[in-house]
């Protein structure tokens, strides 16, 4: 047993060296730093106690960022998953006719988020973009909005792009599960006279509860951590309209050089994500126990 433990630790050592230096230590350091005022440059930092945390709780912008994160969570799940499910069923049943479609279907997943952001900034562009000229061409000028520049729409304009980018991901996830359902079930249901939609609602969908749960969890946690696309497309603006916890943290730490306050935001974000993840895990486990 003793030599076995020793071998195990030797095998774990390289991985844990990376994890400790670049994940565990930084998390602890951030928590610690959230109790200081510091610009990241001077040698001395000033202990602030709960100062940063008090400011955070009273910070209008932080709460707005959190609300925006929650909006992304809800809209991502509500828009992406049903569409992805519809497309997965379609591909699964469509057979050969949809083969050519399928190649194009995954395209959004293949571009880096930065590229997607830059591309859609151009697509939304008022003059040279694709959307407004098209709306004007079909006589809907009044719908030609300032998609990213207007505080009322900017968050939703980016959410539309997030959906565009992630629908293929969930589509493949659902498709993989659909393919694994034995075809005998389909035949038996057909003999019993079940229609295509009855088969989906009564047989396929219940069998996919597990994978839908996984998809919801992934989307939930991913949305709370979201950064890249918002940063590229709006930098959280205009006037914080599309601010997220991560973009706000970045600005405080690396633009305003308020490392302590940035760390407080990061720690708050960390806590929210961990609690959400634990809750999602608990729900998942309870459901599995019931099943």
């Amino acid at each position, binding site marked *: 047993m003793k030599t*076995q433990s020793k*071998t*195990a*630790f030797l*095998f*774990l050592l390289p*991985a844990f060296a*990376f*994890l400790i*230096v*670049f*994940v565990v230590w*930084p*998390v602890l350091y*951030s928590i610690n*730093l959230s109790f200081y005022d510091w610009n990241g440059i001077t040698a001395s930092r000033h202990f602030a106690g709960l100062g940063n945390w008090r400011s955070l709780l009273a910070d209008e912008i932080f709460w707005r960022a959190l609300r925006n994160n929650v909006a992304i969570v809800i809209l991502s799940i509500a828009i992406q998953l049903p*569409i992805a499910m*519809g*497309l997965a*069923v*379609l591909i699964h049943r*469509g057979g050969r006719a949809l083969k050519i479609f399928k*190649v*194009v*279907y*995954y*395209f959004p*997943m*293949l*571009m*880096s988020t*930065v*590229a997607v952001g*830059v*591309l859609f900034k*151009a*697509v939304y562009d008022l003059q040279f*973009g*694709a959307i407004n*000229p098209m709306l004007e*061409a079909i006589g809907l000028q009044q719908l030609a909005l300032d998609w990213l520049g207007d505080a009322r729409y900017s968050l939703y304009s980016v959410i539309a792009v997030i959906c565009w980018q992630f*629908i293929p991901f969930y589509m*493949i996830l659902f498709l993989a*599960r659909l393919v694994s359902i034995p075809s005998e079930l389909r035949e038996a249901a057909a003999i019993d006279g079940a229609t*295509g939609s009855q088969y989906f609602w009564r047989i396929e969908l219940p069998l996919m509860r597990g994978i839908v749960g*996984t998809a919801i969890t*992934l989307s939930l946690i991913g949305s709370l*951590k979201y*950064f*890249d696309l918002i*940063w*590229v497309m709006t930098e959280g603006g205009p006037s914080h309209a599309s601010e997220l916890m*991560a973009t706000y943290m*970045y600005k405080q*730490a*690396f633009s305003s050089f308020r490392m302590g306050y940035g*760390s407080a935001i990061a720690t708050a974000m*960390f806590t929210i*994500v*961990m609690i959400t993840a634990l809750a999602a895990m608990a729900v998942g486990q309870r459901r599995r126990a019931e099943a």
Partner: protein
Amino acid sequence: MRRTILMLLAVAWLLAAGLPYYFMVQSGFKTQFELLSSPFWALPKEWTLQNYRTVLAGTFLHSLFNSLLVVSISVLLILITASMAAYAFSRIQFRFSRPLFAIVVAGLVIPVHVTLIPVYLLTTKLGIYDTLWALIGPYVAFNLPISVFVLTEFMREIPRELEEAAKMDGAGPIGIFLRVILPLSGPGLATVGIYNAVALWNEFVFAYVLTSSPARRTLPLAIWDYQGQYSANIPLIMSVLSLSALPLILIYIVAQERVTGGMMAGAIKG
């Protein structure tokens, strides 16, 4: 009725997924004047390669090389360290096995941003700020959890008998790992490798914070720099985007199932 709705959805998504690419590729061949003077959906009247020439004459290829270098070193390190850890978790019984595995699982959800300030400070202190080396540590560490997780699941499925046979022949744990487990883990390693390669190829935040000069930029940051520098020249930016999307699209067309399967590694446990 239902059928029509589904077919409409099929065509709608085809257009939604394809049209932005169409816009991107053909605009890249337009002159700036033509983009302003004709509608975006019209193909270029005169196809120009000028945008591509400008981009290729700049630092683009250098960034491509940077990305290739950082991604291959990181993926290699991830595969080595993750497979070793997965071997310990799946084949050896030892104390603290569960709490240590719990740390790995927690690593699956930790937001990158909570480590950004400390990693930035550490990088400057080590004097590797604005070098490609700065990226490798965080890249490996943040992709280890998923990799260890997937490989542990994979190695659990390898029959014990094979291990026993090697033990009879006098092989120690290192021998078993190198000669039995690793060769049988090929598909698992491929999945993890593809997943990490795609994720790191597209990584933005760490590269944004830990590098600054054009010579050290990876591909996503090169795109970022171009759009800052040429924000008014949409055709040029579209040619940068087309070029940067090309490698992954080509690989995808050659090995569709492999790539999509690999990208799903993050969700493998259903």
